[in-house]
């Protein structure tokens, strides 16, 4: 029962509010001191808060609005919450970032771009129409192009943004071409309708395949899966830390949201009776899960192996984020709601630990002017608390108890074992062992190397507080992860399924 457009507006209030605040934040540059960094920041924060209130109101909604363009369902709700949290955190980070304080920085634009990226991510999470998908993807992309090159004076940032824009535009172009082919084959842009067309089975295999592969190129680039990951390390290294952190969480998560929705709605065989409850089947003649499996293996393996050799902290985290994309993809291979819920749970963990890690990296860059792992020597003695926090985040990334990262991995592997993807699970765990090596490399240089000068460097109370806020859940959610798991389980619900 598709709503009329007018009624539909009721369902996009959060997005609308965000857009309003986008404008407001932009306008703050006109009022007051143009160089003030706080006014826009607080405006943005307020924006996220207000939106949060409205999003909270949407809990449990399961609607398809704007004539099937946009789904407001638990699945997208989950991601919206994630995006808001990450956006707010990024704003908080940015307020402390030193590298943004350049002569030409226009804070208003910076923060408004963060908001716009979040808006794009919102739509990616809900988009159930190919056009909608493309548009939201572009919105996110364009915002991130600008953000990654935001510190204009910094040649590395410029380079990053240039590579990003070229690579991104190209990939989205491929995706668009794929969309056009799909449209040509089915005459539909709505993925539900696509599903109908596919299940009729009357389509030419090859063209469908071409289309899907081209789509995959676009999506793969967003989640930086091998072999579409090449931009990631360079951009992550070049861009400001805050932006890198933002990209590594929000835009990646959005990409995954879109990927999951596209494949799950588009290719699930609704008619078939699933063998196990929560296990969905794709109709015959199109076996793309193996491709995803191979991609995930390649992604995590390459990410981890290359990461072993990084000396730059941001680059290391970049490759680690590639590896994590690989882990998350594993969950999708299982084709079960359990796999999806494991992925969702992993996103929560990933947000907490990754943002945390980047936050410390930013702080260290501020105070120690270094992004090199060797620069972290003796951090454990010079700034114990920050070092401890970073240790927690890194072990969480490795996935060792007692951290939440462990639970995330646990459930991913559980999903695999459940569906007898033993080999994939083994590859996964071996990868996590390898990953230990480079995460510990950082810990090692923080604690096992005695610093040249051992002067204490302390961060302010607020900073420590923010660290704690990020760190506590990393431990606490391991000891009691019921709520997250519960939330993840209920968030696999998409409109039109179940």
């Amino acid at each position, binding site marked *: 029962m598709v709503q009329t457009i007018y009624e539909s507006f009721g369902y996009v209030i959060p997005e609308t509010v965000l857009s309003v605040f986008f404008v407001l934040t932009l306008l703050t540059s006109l009022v007051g001191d143009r160089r003030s960094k706080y006014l826009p920041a607080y405006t943005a924060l307020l924006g996220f808060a207000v939106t949060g209130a409205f999003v909270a109101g949407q809990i449990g909604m399961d609607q398809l609005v704007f004539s099937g363009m946009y789904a407001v369902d638990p699945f997208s709700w989950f991601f919206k919450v994630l995006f808001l949290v990450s956006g707010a955190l990024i704003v908080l980070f940015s307020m402390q970032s030193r590298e943004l304080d350049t002569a030409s920085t226009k804070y208003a634009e910076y923060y408004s771009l963060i908001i716009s990226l979040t808006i794009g991510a919102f739509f990616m999470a809900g988009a159930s129409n190919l056009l909608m998908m493309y548009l939201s993807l572009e919105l996110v992309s364009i915002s991130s192009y600008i953000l990654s090159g935001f510190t204009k004076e910094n040649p590395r940032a410029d380079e990053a943004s240039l*590579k990003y824009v070229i690579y991104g535009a190209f990939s989205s172009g491929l995706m668009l071409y794929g969309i056009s082919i799909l449209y040509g084959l089915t005459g539909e842009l709505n993925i539900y309708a696509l599903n109908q067309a596919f299940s009729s089975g009357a389509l030419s295999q090859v063209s469908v*395949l071409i289309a*899907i*592969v081209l789509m995959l190129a676009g999506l793969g680039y967003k989640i930086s899966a091998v072999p579409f990951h090449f931009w990631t390390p360079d951009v992550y290294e070049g861009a400001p830390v805050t932006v890198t952190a933002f990209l590594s969480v929000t835009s990646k998560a959005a990409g995954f949201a879109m990927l999951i929705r596209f494949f799950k709605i588009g290719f699930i065989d609704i008619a078939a009776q699933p063998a196990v409850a929560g296990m969905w089947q794709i109709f015959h003649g199109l076996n793309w899960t193996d491709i995803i499996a191979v991609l995930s293996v390649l992604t995590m393996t390459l990410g981890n192996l290359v990461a072993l050799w990084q000396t730059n902290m941001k680059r290391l985290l970049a490759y680690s984020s590639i590896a994590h994309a690989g882990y998350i993809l594993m969950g999708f291979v299982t084709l079960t709601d359990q796999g999806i819920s494991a992925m969702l749970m992993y996103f929560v963990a990933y947000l907490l630990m990754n943002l945390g890690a980047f936050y410390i990296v930013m702080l260290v860059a501020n105070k120690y002017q270094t992004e090199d792992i060797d620069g972290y020597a003796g951090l454990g003695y010079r700034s114990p608390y920050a070092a401890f926090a970073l240790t927690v985040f890194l072990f969480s990334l490795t996935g060792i108890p007692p951290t939440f990262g462990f639970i995330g991995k646990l459930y991913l592997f559980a999903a695999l074992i459940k569906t007898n993807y033993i080999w994939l699970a083994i590859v996964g765990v071996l990868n996590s062992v390898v990953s230990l090596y480079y995460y510990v490399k950082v810990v090692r240089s923080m604690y096992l190397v005695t610093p040249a000068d051992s002067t204490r460097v302390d961060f302010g109370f607020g900073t420590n507080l923010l660290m704690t806020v990020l760190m506590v859940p990393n431990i606490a959610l391991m000891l009691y992860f019921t709520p997250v798991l519960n939330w993840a389980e209920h968030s696999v619900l998409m409109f039109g399924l179940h």
Partner: protein
Amino acid sequence: MASTESLLLNLALAVLFLPLAGFALLIFFGKKIPRQDLVETGILFTALAISIYIMVQKVFFVSAPTIDLTFKWLDLGAVAGQQGFSIDLGIAIDNIAAIMLVVVTLISSLVHTFSLAYMEGDVRYTRYYAYLGLFSFSMLGIVLSNNLLMIYVFWELVGISSYLLIGHWYEKKSASDASKKAFIVNRVGDVGFFIGIMIVFTSLHTFLLRDVFGGIAAQHLTGPLLTAAGILIFCGAVGKSAQFPLHVWLPDAMEGPTPVSALIHAATMVAAGVYLVARIFPMLTAEALTVIAYIGAITAFIAATIAVTQNDIKKVLAYSTISQLGYMIMALGVDAYSAGFFHLVTHAAFKAGLFLASGSVIYAMHHEQDMRNMGGLRKKMPITYWAFVIFSLSISGIPFTSGFLSKDSILAGALAYGLLTGNYLIPIIGYLVVFLTAAYMFRLIIMTFHGEPRDHHKYEHAKESPKVMTVPLIVLASLSIFVFYSFNPFNPEKGWFLQAVQQPASVVPAAQSYGFDQPVNDVQVTSPQQQPNAAELSVEAQKTETTRYEEAMEAVHYPGLALSLTLAVLGILAAFVVYDWKKIDAEKLKQRVKPVYTFLYNKWYFDELYDATAVAGTLLLSKSLAWFDGHVIDGVVNGAATLTRLWSTLSGKFDHYIVDGLVNFSAWFTGFLGKATRRVQTGKVQTYIVFALLGVIVIFYVFRQF
């Protein structure tokens, strides 16, 4: 009666634990107690008194062959439907145990007394007495145990106390080496012992000797396994009693203080092996006994030949000990059980005496042990001299000495065995050794006491040892006279001793025992402990079953006696001819038989052999394995790591090489399209794009396959 038995048992326990108490006392409060030495010595004399009482009671008044005290030491319960696992331990006193009690406590207390002077002012005087206490405890433990496990336990404990005492002067490398060698060589034997025990236990589920014998009699353990068990347990004896091929540790053990050599390495501990064989005698099959007999004979011969050539007074005695032990083992092997045990006892007395006497000589000569620097001490120290003579006569088997009685019955047994089995090699060796024994003993006496002093300086200072040292000598010398064992100086058969020490009946299946051991009548063969009157029964069985053997012994007794006597006298004469009257020049003799002499002088090169094979082999193996561990095993791990790293560098260089390669390819490709052939494009972003595109294509083709 029962009250007497329990009294005896309690007394036995007292005898057992008194020395341990002394040990604990000295170890923990040694420094605080005045005259700790006297404390320990006193303890030992008390123990001696009690032991004598026990022996007299047991041998002459208690009719039961064995007084037994058993308790459950360990119970692991049972797995449902399987045989439960529990270990019983306990002590038992039978005649041989009672006699051994006296022997051990007697020698021990005498040695304690002797040491009062000999060890005076030693650096670790207290330690010394503590360890003696520990040793006495463990030795008595072996004597009293009624089960294999406890025997093994105390077996190891005597090993340790001997280790500690040999290494008493551990500042000397040679001493610590010797102690280590003694322990490890013994360990080798003990492993055999251990395996033997395991065989017995796994087949019979008990360590108690009486149940073991019962089980064997009930045919629960038969055939080759039974033989194997016997031989393996005997391995323990081979180690402790320094039998060939594990005899190499005993001569080195002479690094320890001389009284220790007297107590442990002559009288008691080394005899423990013989005692063990006597204990397990009923379960030994014919094959096992034959092996034992040969080991004993070979040992006796080898050791005797070496003894002839040695110049260190203690070394000579050490080899003579080995050779005598060989005798005992041989005796048991040839089924002359009582004779073997008899010789054990007499030997304990006179060999301890010999060591103490040599100790007193060494004491007088200020720790000079090389006989070539002695001589003419007869006038200086008469008591020692005469004691020495008596002991030597005894060991050479001259009538009216204890040695004569025991050795003679052994030889008779061996001869009888030869007659019955047609296996004459053993008796021949036996008689050969008689000659050698007499020869080297008197060579020793002559070189030490007769002739002219060779080292005058030492000679001047030499004087007779103090009372505490001479009194034990006198005691032991008197104990080497026949009367203490049998009133008939020529035939001990009717003496109380051999009456008390009756050969237990064999429990092995008929087919596996010596033919001449077969009961002719229908006496059911069981171990004595199982039926109250089994003693008489077994004696009966003895009477009936060993008639052939006894006849043989009777037949060969006097000829054998005559032969051995002649050989002994010849031996003595030879010694005098060569060393005293110098009718034949010893040096010339050496020259004439140079190769033989060097061979013997170097102890048949056993040490060299073992060093070259076992020791060197083990060390080499361990070195190479350590290398293997460090380089290969660990290398594999690190190798894996390196591989991973290599792999990762590859993927790290991925963007560089492979992508560049693709760039060149794409450049060529595009150039081929006719445009910009000259200007090869190598922009990084674009190479990324190229790669992504190739990815798409690859994926597409992989897709196609499905």
